[in-house]
């Protein structure tokens, strides 16, 4: 009997192989979703932005998602490429398609609904619709719970300034239409910068006028930063703001905070807790 089963399994092997068993994942949140779907065994490569979970870093890195080279991608012999929107360049994608590799573009997202759409797109491309629906439903429920927690927070909404970079004392802040602004709103904060879209350099006056209660920034590696000892406190304009006075800088891993992947409900809760923490 067991022999018969083994024989059946062996006979089925070519069938499963035909359903794309060499998957290349381009985009940090796409890789996270592949892992969340339990399909990591099919991954043969990743891009530079795919760093979570830690196990994904063991896979060959084919380069930065917007500057892919065709041979690097083909060298891991993928038969399916899951690619977050915005990956490229277009010439590379054309060459890859010419080489007969199937490319599925996963839509970008900066809302919880977008995350569910991403999950369903990845699941459909991997032929895992059932698991995809399950994961999307789980994320939906977690998001709803997180948003309920956010709504239950008492008191006025804190003004949050997201600082993307601080090169030579010149701050780059997040305006509207950014994933940072979306996360701040979801976590029950108010984006302190208004009047422009995208990430732009801020003048010191704009920083002062923004009067943030909390400064939000990314950390490069996982784990909390050192409270009370952040380089941002040294910035003169920031130091004069309520956030600078109260020494309230919140740092979170970039992919966790802004990736809009399966960890987004968790990120909403973590950011919400940090924004409403007393005596930080």
């Amino acid at each position, binding site marked *: 009997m067991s022999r018969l089963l083994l024989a059946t399994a062996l006979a089925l092997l070519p069938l499963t192989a035909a359903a794309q068993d060499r998957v290349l994942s381009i985009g940090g949140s796409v890789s996270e979703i592949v892992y969340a779907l339990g399909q990591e065994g099919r991954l043969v490569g990743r891009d*530079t932005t795919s760093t979570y979970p830690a196990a994904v870093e063991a896979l060959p890195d084919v380069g930065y998602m917007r500057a892919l080279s065709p041979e690097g991608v083909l060298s891991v012999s993928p038969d399916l490429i899951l690619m977050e929107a915005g990956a490229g360049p277009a010439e590379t994608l054309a060459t890859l398609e010419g080489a007969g590799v199937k490319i599925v573009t996963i839509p970008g997202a900066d809302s919880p609904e977008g995350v569910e759409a991403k999950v369903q797109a990845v699941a459909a491309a991997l032929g895992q619709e059932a698991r995809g629906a399950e994961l999307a439903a789980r994320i939906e429920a977690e998001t709803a719970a997180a948003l309920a927690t956010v709504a239950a927070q008492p008191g006025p909404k804190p003004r949050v300034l997201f600082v993307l970079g601080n090169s030579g004392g010149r701050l780059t802040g997040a305006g509207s239409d950014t994933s940072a602004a979306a996360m701040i709103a979801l976590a029950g904060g108010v984006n302190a910068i208004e009047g422009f879209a995208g990430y732009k350099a801020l003048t010191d006056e704009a920083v002062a006028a923004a009067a943030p209660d909390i400064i939000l920034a990314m950390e490069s590696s996982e784990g909390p930063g050192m409270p009370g000892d952040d380089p941002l406190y040294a910035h003169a304009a920031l130091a004069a703001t309520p956030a600078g006075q109260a020494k309230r800088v919140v740092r979170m891993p970039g992919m966790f905070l802004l990736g809009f992947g399966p960890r987004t409900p968790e990120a909403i809760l973590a950011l919400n807790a940090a924004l409403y923490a007393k005596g930080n």
Partner: protein
Amino acid sequence: MATAAIAAAPATAVTAPRLKVGAVTAGLALILLTTAAASLSLGASGLLPWELFSRDLSPAERAILLDIRLPRLLLGALVGASLAVSGALMQGLFRNPLADPGLVGVGAGAGLGAVVAIVLGGLMPAAIHAATGMYLVPLFAFFGGWATTLILYRVASLRGQTSIATMLLAGIVLGALAGAATGVLVYLADDNQLRDLTFWGLGSLAGANWTKLAAAAPILIAGLALSPLLARGLNAMALGEGVARHLGVPVEGVKRGAILIVAAMTGASVAVSGGIGFVGIVVPHILRLAIGPDHRSLLPTAALFGAALLIAADTVSRLVVSPAELPIGIIMALIGAPVFLWILLARRATMEI
């Protein structure tokens, strides 16, 4: 008559360097063949070219050899040769060993064209997108470089005479202007566009394909084929424009030819490969030290050396962080800058810049 005299004089006077030129040319041709073979054989996938004949390859493997490595090799050879020859032409024209194609505004103009296409591409009419497809950036870079050079040429020319000094100054001014316009667009650019801009500026042959090769090759080959016609004129101009004119050299024609050839070759190179520096300065320099300043031997050897150097750098760029790759501009600067500095230090006593 006079041109015949110029042609005859160096030929009789320097027979020994002739042998040296022959040896250097043969050596460079050999290096070029070796690097070309390496470029076809080395890559992230570990495929070897003869597997094309020895076994049945999958479509993806065929594509790696025939649609990725081969056009990339050919494009790299043509771009490297063009940049090196452009550098040699500019240094001859400006009688300055530090001149490079950037002096005639090609780089700044092409950069501005590329930035316009990357940042404002989304706002352009659909008809332009339909016509250019994914080649919007290279086309704009080419026309940006070309337009800047023509403007510069008009500015520096009066009654059929082109002032090289005016051109140099106007080139710096136009470069600053193009840089400022680029800066405004960079400010307007969003996050993703900024990343595209950065990678464009670092240069790469990763986007090479047969379409790009077919578009750029006629311009680059025509430029390479026409440049030797200027060699004698540039040799004479090394003595000064006045002397060259007395020797019967059509000075204005040589200037016009050199500027147009450089603008076309550099514009096309930058359009298909982004910003790749140092080839135009390092290659002619090393060759001048090896075989002397005669443009008749300098231009062809610069083409060989430039091609070999760029192919080698490109091969390194796709091997060091394989399967990802480094932009070639980084590799060129990493190789070029120390070599250049070493030459300067070694020749400090004897060479005057």
